[in-house]
């Protein structure tokens, strides 16, 4: 197996899928220049018809992606930075998510959106959003958040091949992370969580950048005799209840670590599912480690403590064992 960075893994997925299937094309702001890294070299390789810079018209080009998908193409629409999905929100909700159902199955919507989340970098409130919770409320969208190079590649490939709309949230904090990526046509199925570390005392269900922190926290508390199981959710919709529930059945304790703001977070959803379906397994309250319900400030001193960290996850685990 080779070692790739998260960004290189995304790039490989794009190259391979574009080579495999002529109907795949990429569009977005400055994709030919690969401003966000993952589209590097695509324009040179596949030409500017299939790798297409767009005007700054998010609603327009997301909707155009939907239209192209409806006539048989497989667009990959790069959103540049995740919060710009808000500009295209109605197209995502009313067209991308709803067309298959609204037209009684006449429309297929094989579109993939790439949405890098650049929080924790002094970009302030408008640029630091992690907008998957808002989109989770919209039936008809599949949402993923791969947290390793292997998943980044394998899940993006699965997304592009899927006949439904998939939004792939990249945690910018992971872009530089290196990891082993299986050779060959590495595809990771959507909707399946991954137990990244086994344990018996506390389940930490983690998402996106919080997965790394959860693994660090698990190491930290292992020395104290607390055995943490880390479940990387990977897929937000569909959400793999089975894996979460079996882990909680084993440990009886749950921490959910999610970089989103707490209200309406994936952490809240996972907590609700477990409180509903695995209540009798629980030996302690559920604990959410999230970003508080405030804006993201510019000041680095103010911003840093807001997000889930290994420390916050570790102390949540400790508290459940107390």
């Amino acid at each position, binding site marked *: 197996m080779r070692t790739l960075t998260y960004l290189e893994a995304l790039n490989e997925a794009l190259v391979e899928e574009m080579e495999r299937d002529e109907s795949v094309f990429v569009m977005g702001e400055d994709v030919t220049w690969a401003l966000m890294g993952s589209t590097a070299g695509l324009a040179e390789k596949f030409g500017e018809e299939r790798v297409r810079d767009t005007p700054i018209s998010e609603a327009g080009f997301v909707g155009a992606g939907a*239209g192209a998908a*409806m*006539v048989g193409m497989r667009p990959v629409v790069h959103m540049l930075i995740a919060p710009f999905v808000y500009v295209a929100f109605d197209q995502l909700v009313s067209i991308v998510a709803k067309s298959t*159902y*609204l037209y*009684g199955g006449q429309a297929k*919507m094989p579109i993939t959106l790439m949405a890098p989340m650049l929080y924790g970098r002094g970009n302030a409130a408008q640029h630091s959003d992690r907008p998957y919770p808002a989109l989770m409320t919209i039936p008809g969208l599949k949402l993923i958040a791969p947290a390793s190079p292997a998943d980044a590649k394998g899940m993006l490939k699965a997304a592009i091949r899927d006949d439904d709309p998939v939004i792939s949230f990249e945690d910018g904090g992971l872009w530089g992370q290196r990891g082993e990526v299986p050779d060959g046509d590495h595809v990771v199925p959507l909707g399946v969580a991954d137990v990244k570390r086994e344990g018996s005392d506390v389940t930490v269900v983690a998402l996106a950048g919080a997965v790394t922190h959860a693994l660090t926290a698990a190491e930290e508390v292992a020395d104290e005799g607390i055995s943490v199981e880390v479940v990387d959710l990977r897929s937000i919709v569909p959400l793999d209840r089975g894996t979460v529930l079996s882990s909680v059945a084993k440990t009886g304790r749950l921490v959910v670590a999610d970089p989103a703001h707490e209200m309406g977070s994936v952490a809240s959803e996972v907590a609700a599912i477990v409180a509903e379906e695995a209540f009798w397994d629980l030996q302690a309250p559920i604990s959410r480690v999230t970003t508080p319900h405030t804006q993201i400030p510019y000041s680095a001193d103010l911003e840093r403590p807001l997000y889930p960290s290994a420390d916050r996850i570790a102390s949540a685990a400790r508290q459940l064992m107390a």
Partner: protein
Amino acid sequence: MTVSGGDLREMYRRMSRIRQFEATTKELLLKGELYGAFHTSTGQEASIVGSCMALRDDDYMVGTHRSHGHPIGKGAALDGLLAELMGKETGVNQGKGGSMHLSDFSVGSLGETSIVGSGLPVAAGAALGSKLQGLDRVTLCFFGDGASNQGTFHESLNLAAIWTLPAVYVCENNGYGELTAAHKTMAVEHVSERAAGYGMPGVTVDGQDVLAVHEAVGEAVGRARRGDGPSLVETMTYRFDNHAIGIRIENYRDPAEIEHWRTQRDPLVLFRDALGERGIDGDELDVIDKEVEAELAEALEFARSSPAPPPEAAFTHLFTNPIDA
């Protein structure tokens, strides 16, 4: 552009289909057999049919909340449309779309969408898709005067222009967006004046004259098909009914204005006159009307006798490829 006799008759037939479909469904709605937000196309038949008949069967069309007329214009059968309005399993949308979304993909009707302005980007995308596929298909997009004030109008026409897409944008300017007059919501007289900002041709035609519409849209379609890019065509038309059936507020339109359009500018009457001048006489058109009447009666029978969707249907088509999780 000369139109063959056969095509003239087909135009009339489609206009008659729309007119009769709307009369019947409106009646059913008022009697309570149908429901939902119900926007009829009565009065706008020439604009719809003149536009659609300028397309090939394999061309695409995108539409609006005022969805009944468009698929009929594009050639859809009436039975699936009526069954859809009744929420039946045999409806074109399997009972899931209803009045604002009658869409028959088998005739290239890609989707009527009820969020005002939301179809314009989709049309650009369908045109982009055809272009990337190396097909010479054209996508026609209907939208209203009201929709021309949405940001999506701007973004979509711009995208279509810079990418030289085979798209034709047809603004059905019926003078109102819901109850608000078009002249209160824009500072230009014609939506077509906005085309210049995208470097594309923009024309305004009499939307009650099906042949004028057909000619203008036909030119735009030819341009698009030749690879010369998109156009904007504005058809000046009028809806004979209120914005939606059941709205009780009527005072936003001058009764004399309504009267004038209904009596002087009825597109079917005007077309019958034009056809008469071309030697197709009224008796022949009456026969077409009768045939459509029979077709509609059959469609109604079909719709009424069709089954309701099974309860599980609420959960299918959420995804094409559902994943158990």
